[in-house]
């Protein structure tokens, strides 16, 4: 189902979990894997000086340096590349990570983007002014689903058996559902449809009565049935649940209970996190806490 995968990697340990998944998927699915590395942000106005996120040095970038970096990326993944099973290309570039990843995505039109971990550079002051993290920004604008792997996921694509689909009933969630269903069908695994009713006071401005909560839960079940179950035709191996709480906490708890191997959800926030607060979006929170990879779909 994926022919072309864009793997945005730091080519460091931070991306190792993601790398395992990326190579595993590309191998299993016979997909082309594009290893993409944004080596740094141009600092210094119009000069050629770039802060290399890997070496943590200011370097002067030219074609030679870029090919050196590409070579480095290749070396870093030499084990995975050795057997020649994975059809792979490598590219390095300079710029703000989210923008360059999106630029590359626009150019090669992948079916999936896998985001590796950062080298903590989101903390660096050069990024601070650009609101929202790389993840948020890529998730917001990506032309295809993005997969984020935060913890180690043993053998990924081969052995998926439980997929959790978290919905907030938005349009983007519908898209995410299509995608989750497609995976569930092609890998023949169980799909768990889940909605978390947000009762955090910040959301509603006041707390709800128990009656209200229960009524909303019933409503959510109805919506799930109407929106999603109806479209699964005769599929039997699914479950659905609605819990109340803080959405990201509930999704994570739920996924643990269902032994999920993958969470699929929509990236729905239109606005970037302007305050740059550490909380981040719902989706980011899920990614941070979930024990399994997360796929975000926005269109």
């Amino acid at each position, binding site marked *: 189902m994926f022919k072309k995968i864009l793997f945005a990697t730091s080519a460091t340990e931070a991306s190792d979990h993601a790398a395992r998944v990326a190579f595993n998927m590309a191998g299993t699915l016979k997909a082309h894997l594009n290893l993409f590395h944004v080596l740094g942000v*141009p*600092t*210094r*106005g*119009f*000069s*050629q*000086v770039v802060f290399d996120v890997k070496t943590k040095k200011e370097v*002067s970038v*030219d*074609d*030679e*340096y870029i090919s050196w970096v590409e070579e480095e990326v290749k070396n870093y993944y030499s084990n995975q590349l050795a057997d020649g099973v994975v059809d792979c290309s490598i590219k390095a570039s300079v*710029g*703000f990570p989210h*923008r360059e990843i*999106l630029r590359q995505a*626009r150019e090669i039109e992948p079916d999936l983007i896998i985001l590796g971990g950062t080298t903590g550079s989101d903390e*660096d*002051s*050069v990024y*601070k*002014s*650009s*609101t929202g993290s790389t993840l948020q920004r890529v998730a917001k*604008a990506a032309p295809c689903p993005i997969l984020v792997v935060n913890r180690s996921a043993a053998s990924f694509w081969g052995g998926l058996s439980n997929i959790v689909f978290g919905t907030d009933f938005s*349009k983007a969630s519908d898209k995410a559902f299509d995608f989750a269903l497609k995976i569930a069908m092609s890998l023949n695994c169980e799909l768990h449809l889940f909605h978390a009713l947000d009762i955090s006071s910040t959301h509603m401005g006041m707390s709800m009565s128990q009656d209200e909560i229960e009524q909303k839960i019933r409503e959510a079940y109805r919506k799930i049935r109407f929106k999603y179950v109806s479209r699964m035709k005769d599929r039997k191996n699914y479950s659905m649940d609605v819990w109340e709480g803080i959405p990201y906490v509930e999704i994570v708890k739920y996924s643990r209970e269902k032994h999920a191997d993958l969470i699929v959800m929509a990236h729905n926030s*239109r*606005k970037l996190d*302007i305050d740059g607060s550490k909380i981040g979006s719902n989706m980011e929170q899920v990614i941070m806490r979930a024990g399994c990879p997360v796929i975000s779909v926005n*269109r």
Partner: protein
Amino acid sequence: MPEGIFCNKKPIETEEALTALLGDTSGAQYYKEMKSLDVDSKLLWTTIQNTCKSRIRTWLEICAHCGMCADSCFLYLVNDRDPKQVPAYKIQSTLGEIIKRKGNVDNKFMHMAMETAWAKCTCCNRCGMYCPHGIDMGIMFGYLRGLLYQQGFVPWELKIGAGMHRVYRAQMDVSEEEFVETFQWMVEEYEEEYPGLAVPVDVENADIMYTVNAREVKHYPEDLAEAAILFHAAGENWTVPSKGWEQTSLAMFAGDWAACKMQVENVYAAMERLKPKRMVGTECGHAHRATVVEGPYWAGRKDGKPPAESIHYIEWLAEALREGKLKIDPERRIKVPVTLQDSCNYVRNHGLRETAREILSYIVEPGYYREMSPNREHNYCCGGGGGFNGIGLFRPQRNKGLITKRDQILATGAKLVIAPCHNCWDAIRDLEEEFEIGIKWSFLKPLVISMLEIPDHMKPEE
């Protein structure tokens, strides 16, 4: 070796030469060659005789050596009042000396002059306001840069920068196609959120022709989207030229006057082709200076004006807010202590001292705005002007130069610095990186968008 392979008196004219020079990492070989570059004294002297007329000659002659300009220069203040940083001293010991010696100066002298012209002056023109005789050292340094450029004594990045303008008519290697394509991409990315968003390319007789800074295209194209969103929200009839869209001029920093002319004529040609009512440039100071203030003279326009009325982004924004074309949701106004960086290039040098303040009166919650001291046309340079930001060789000097701005900002207690100028924005970003004083900085566009009352025609259907 009189003329090096990289370091010589010839400007960069071709893509190959440009790539080759770029390939010389950090200009290592370039600067090595510069050590043995000959000075063509005859050329230097004839150039001076042809171009150095009564204004500059008189300035050099009547300077009373009174030192009243010393305190006006931020580089003097920040370098512990080093007398060698007094503006009058800096110019007398370089340009003054060259003229006194009728151009008979040696390689070593030219190195000193190069460092003085690019690392001891940002051409902010502040000293000119403080000299009783009206001697503007900034202008003279600009002139000196031209002489040095002609002799090949110019920092590596600026030789490249000027070359970029010669080859691409842009400060970076962004082609015309790339510009249009990137703009379209950005609009696609945002059109779901802002239905009807479009980028009208090469539309004739539009009310506004928008021009940008190539760095936006290359590194933060969101800026393009933001411009489109605001024009769209304001219901403007606007367009971008597919050719002549670059408003900046590194050639101006380099002193490559011929390249300045080529660059600006490219933009004027777009104006003449598309006949817009007005041109609006992006939030950039030196771009405005190059295309609107100095440009007409490079292009030989006797009335000192571009072919179409040309305004800075803040002028358009202030007008749009004033006339209610853009509406701000008062709830979402800025509620953190905020200050404004006055860019020398359009405040001191183009009189726009109140414009940005008018914008702030709409977008900042009353009571949160803090003035820097000094401010308006008396504001100090951000510390990175005139090309200083981008020159690797003079980085330590530049970092030192940032201290003035750092202290000015700290004194305001502001947490957010609004810098409607690419160069200032860069310098302030760098100063946060260098000194970590815990500030944020921003252009106006993203701030305004974040508090915009989206008109009905732009609301995404849900």
